[in-house]
């Protein structure tokens, strides 16, 4: 009895498989996956990518020497620029100091005497006023 049932189940399975096969045969072929570089070009590019990078010892030495030279030149240029910057800072400091000295030395001068003696003669009462209590001049020239 179980054998007959099993046979029926097997038959049903075969039927199911046939239906599955029919559906699969009806289905369309999937479109080929798009490749970024189709054709021979892709193969060439991939081959180049897969090729191990081989550099000869002399090339390596040359590259190393060139890199060292470039580094040395860069360092020298940087040092020169640093020295120039230092000089500029020193010069700026000197100028700032001179300016400060000038500000302290240049006190406000009031009531300067007329510059020339012939002009001064017209101002018999002139004097240098160093304090604020000079008051009005005694002789008005005009």
């Amino acid at each position, binding site marked *: 009895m179980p054998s007959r049932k099993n046979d029926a189940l097997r038959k049903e*399975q075969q039927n199911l*498989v046939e239906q599955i096969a029919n559906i699969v045969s009806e289905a*369309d*072929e999937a479109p080929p996956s798009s490749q970024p570089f189709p054709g021979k070009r892709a193969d060439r590019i991939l081959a180049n990518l897969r090729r191990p990078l081989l550099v000869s010892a002399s090339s390596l030495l040359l590259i190393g020497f060139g890199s060292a030279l470039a580094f040395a030149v860069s360092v020298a240029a940087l040092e020169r620029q640093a020295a120039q910057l230092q000089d500029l800072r020193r010069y700026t400091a000197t100028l700032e100091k001179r300016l400060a000295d000038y500000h302290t030395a240049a006190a406000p001068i009031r009531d300067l005497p007329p510059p020339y003696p012939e002009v001064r003669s017209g101002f018999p009462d002139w004097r240098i006023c160093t304090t604020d209590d000079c008051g009005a001049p005694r002789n008005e020239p005009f």
Partner: protein
Amino acid sequence: MAIEAVDELQERTGKRFIARQRAKLESLIYRYLMIELELMSEMDEDEIKRHEPYFGDFDNLISIEKVKEHALKKKRRAA
């Protein structure tokens, strides 16, 4: 498992199933796997391990291992 089986079928055959075909295939494969389970329920563990399900032209296409594992678990639980 039926969904995974349809994915596998699609991958192996290189076909593109539309929704209607997928649904039909899922239902057919589900029924197929259920029958497998039923058949295996009457086997002992060794028989289950030896059992190689028939899948017509797509033999060895669908991984039945999961169904086998499931049947074995069921058998052990029942024991």
